[in-house]
């Protein structure tokens, strides 16, 4: 299996669970075990769009109980005899191998997954930022030779890229260090925020420069936060920025800062 495999380095590993929960897209070759009319295959694949029940396959790293998974789309790209090439967008934790197997069951002839390539993992796609192991070796040695940072920047992306799929809250400089020390975000610290935030949803807290400060769970919706003048708007879950990056602007309860 090939394709998009985002790799987080050092401190950025704190953001990895965002990707584990993120939607994925694959291109898959399914092989049918007997000849089936093309229209029938397409019809059955269409049925697998939406919410599906799925029991993880025998060789799985999770408990094998039936789970509900969302399949956003299945587009058949090509049918060549018994081979069916399709693109599928789905929720994290959907086993494509199992979908192929189940499609075979519905068709009554059986089918298996012949080949799989991931084309998306959350915000990461097969774009100009995608690199192979060979590229990494080449670019890294090139950087060591020349000391030119452009070679490193060519393949090491800022971890903020990972957070693109989360709704964001931008906060003022004076609130940054408090968040870095584990404080929850309160309304006065918010400068701007994105639409689509709901109570209980995961959000990214960023500085006005766009740096990630922390991952948090919103305690109010976008609309509510806009109208709040005090109180907690997001509970801190994971601090990403080291303390002291921004100056400490808050005072402790004892009066001395």
């Amino acid at each position, binding site marked *: *299996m090939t394709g998009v495999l985002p*790799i987080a380095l*050092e401190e950025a590993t704190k953001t990895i669970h965002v990707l584990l929960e993120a939607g994925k897209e694959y291109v898959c070759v399914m092989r049918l075990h007997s000849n089936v009319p093309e229209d029938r295959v397409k019809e059955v694949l269409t049925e697998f769009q939406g919410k599906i029940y799925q029991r993880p396959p025998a060789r799985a790293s999770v408990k094998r109980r039936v789970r509900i998974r969302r399949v956003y789309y299945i587009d058949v790209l090509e049918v060549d005899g018994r081979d069916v090439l399709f693109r599928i967008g789905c929720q994290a934790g959907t086993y494509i191998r199992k979908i192929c197997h189940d499609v075979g069951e519905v068709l009554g002839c059986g089918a298996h997954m012949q080949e799989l390539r991931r084309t998306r993992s*959350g915000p990461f796609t097969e774009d100009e930022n995608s690199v192979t192991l060979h590229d990494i070796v080449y670019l890294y040695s090139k950087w060591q030779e020349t000391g030119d940072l452009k070679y490193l920047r060519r393949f090491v992306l800022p971890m903020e890229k990972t957070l693109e799929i989360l709704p964001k809250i931008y906060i003022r400089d004076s609130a940054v260090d408090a968040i870095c020390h584990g404080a929850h975000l309160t309304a006065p610290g918010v400068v701007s925020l994105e*639409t689509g935030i709901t109570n209980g949803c995961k959000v990214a807290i960023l*500085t006005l420069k766009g740096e990630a400060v922390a991952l948090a769970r919103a305690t109010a919706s976008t609309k509510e936060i806009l109208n709040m003048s005090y109180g907690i708007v997001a509970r801190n879950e994971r601090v990403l920025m080291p303390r002291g990056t921004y100056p400490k602007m808050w005072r402790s309860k004892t009066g001395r800062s």
Partner: protein
Amino acid sequence: MSRIPAPWTMKREVLVKSKSETDPNFGCKPEDRPYPDLIKFGVINLDKPPGPSSHEVAAWVRRIIGVNQIGHGGTLEASKPEKSQCDRRSADSP
């Protein structure tokens, strides 16, 4: 069954709650991070080769770049588990 829109097709707007400016003396834009921090807060969009497992590939990247900690997002299983293990054994032995 009706289609569920994929999360990555969702468009978000930024709404301003209050005005504030950022002090250029602290922090820096993510794309301008200087050398050690660039790696420390970096992610790689790797195109995984067929054969080795995601964990192996992640370990190789760690060795290439010489960082301590590494994590990968979402396991892509090795193409043929039995074969891959044979390969690994032969690759490890001198």
